[in-house]
């Protein structure tokens, strides 16, 4: 669903100058500016949910961070850091009961940043849909090779179900996905949203792309804030 620029400016109470400044600084991706013909010529539209959520976040954070820092927080780039078991135990969004299962199914002792985001997504799915540990183990095994292909985090993690079995799918957030009708879409999570929140919340603990130390802010509350 799209929102016109005029509606966006009215709804969010921002000016043209702010909107285009944020575009220049990379806080709003260029591909979100969608030009469409209208009866007055041409008008710019945006993906409504995404842009409203992004502007709300910018407005909340702009007094605490410079635009450059905010761009890093919201950027889909991947942190180079690896996460050990000790790190996972610090990250509240990772379900502690699932940690042994993650080590077993991934077959290694530390995780990349993208893998961490998927582990958080799995933890949220588990909480939301009462998945068993066996279900999560199967999902982890099934998706682990696909995660290696991801160089950025602007992906949607989609939980599907068929004949009592769960499946995961990762697809770029700017595209739609069509699935076999026998696969039922259960839930989806935007990895980029998790990434922004994690970068904010744990930047002190893990130096996640934020250079200056500032007061800690908590963004994920029960995982609900980041869900699409």
């Amino acid at each position: 669903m799209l929102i016109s620029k005029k509606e966006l400016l009215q709804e969010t109470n921002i000016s043209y100058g702010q909107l285009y400044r944020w575009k220049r600084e990379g806080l709003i991706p260029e591909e979100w500016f969608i030009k469409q013909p209208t009866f007055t010529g041409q008008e710019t539209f945006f993906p409504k949910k995404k842009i409203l959520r992004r502007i709300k976040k910018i407005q909340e954070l702009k007094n605490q961070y410079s635009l450059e820092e905010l761009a890093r927080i919201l950027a889909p780039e991947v942190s180079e850091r690896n996460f050990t078991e000790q790190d996972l135990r610090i990250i509240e969004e990772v379900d502690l009961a699932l940690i042994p299962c993650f080590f077993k199914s991934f077959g290694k002792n530390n995780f990349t940043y993208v893998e961490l985001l998927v582990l958080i997504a799995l933890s949220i799915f588990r909480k939301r849909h009462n998945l068993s540990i066996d279900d999560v183990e199967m999902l982890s095994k099934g998706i682990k090779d696909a995660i290696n292909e991801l160089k950025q985090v602007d992906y949607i993690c989609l939980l599907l179900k068929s004949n009592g079995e769960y499946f995961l799918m990762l697809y770029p957030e700017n595209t739609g996905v069509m699935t076999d009708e026998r696969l039922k879409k259960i839930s989806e999570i935007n990895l980029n949203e998790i990434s922004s929140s994690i970068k904010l919340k744990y930047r002190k603990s893990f130096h996640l792309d934020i250079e200056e130390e500032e007061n800690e802010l908590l963004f994920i509350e029960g995982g609900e804030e980041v869900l699409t």
Partner: protein
Amino acid sequence: MRSSSIAFGDRHYEGNYNRLAIAGDAEITNSDVKKVYCAGDLSISKSTIGNLKFAGDLEADSVTIGTIKGAGDASFSGLCKVDNCVMVGDLECDMLECEILQNGPRSERVNTTSTPTWEGVFKGETFENFKELALEGEIEFNNIILSAPLSTKTEISCDNFYLFSGLTFGSINAEHTFILASSNVHLDTVTGCTVEVKKDFKPGKEFKRIRKNGKYNNLCSDNGIASVDNIEADNIYLENTKSKYICGINVVIGDLCIVDRVEYQDTIEISHKAIVNEVVKT
């Protein structure tokens, strides 16, 4: 103690020098040199140069240079930093960081035969363009001042954008945009905080504060009409402008403007010498 060298013919230098004057090809590696003058092809790697003037081709790899004035094709590989870089010729780089990057000489007496092409990522404080340029890379500068046509396929983004020449390309997104009205200006979209299109330019405080090489005193347009299809900004001031769609918070449509549709939020002024088809308060 630093030594100086005057050389005729090909040379290789390594070490600390005060001044190198070379007529011929030269290679400078792992060096710290205050001044280099070279007529011939020059290759510099892992070195720091204070002042470089060359006529010929330049190949530089991971260098830091104070000032470059060069005529010839140049290639920069690795991360190269130059404080003030004035180039005439093709330029290719991985990443070139400059406080000031200037294409072409300021003097109109110097003629170049063809349009140079620049490829790569150019970053810095101020980019000044004095001769026609084909840009096939990215420019990330706070201030962009164009006194000659620039062709590029990407939107130009910067804090301050000044256009004193004809220009035909897509879009500009700048905090502040100034366009000297001219019949050779054909732009698709200009967005930002402040957009001004005027028939003359008097440098204000903001402009004077910008670090730059050129002198831009009291410029006047050819009295032509600039064509900018869409303008969106908080504050808009237009003279001699033809536009399809304008929207802003405070809008002034001055003399000799032809506008299809204006949408404004707070204030609007329309000159009796302007033609505006439709005005909408939003």
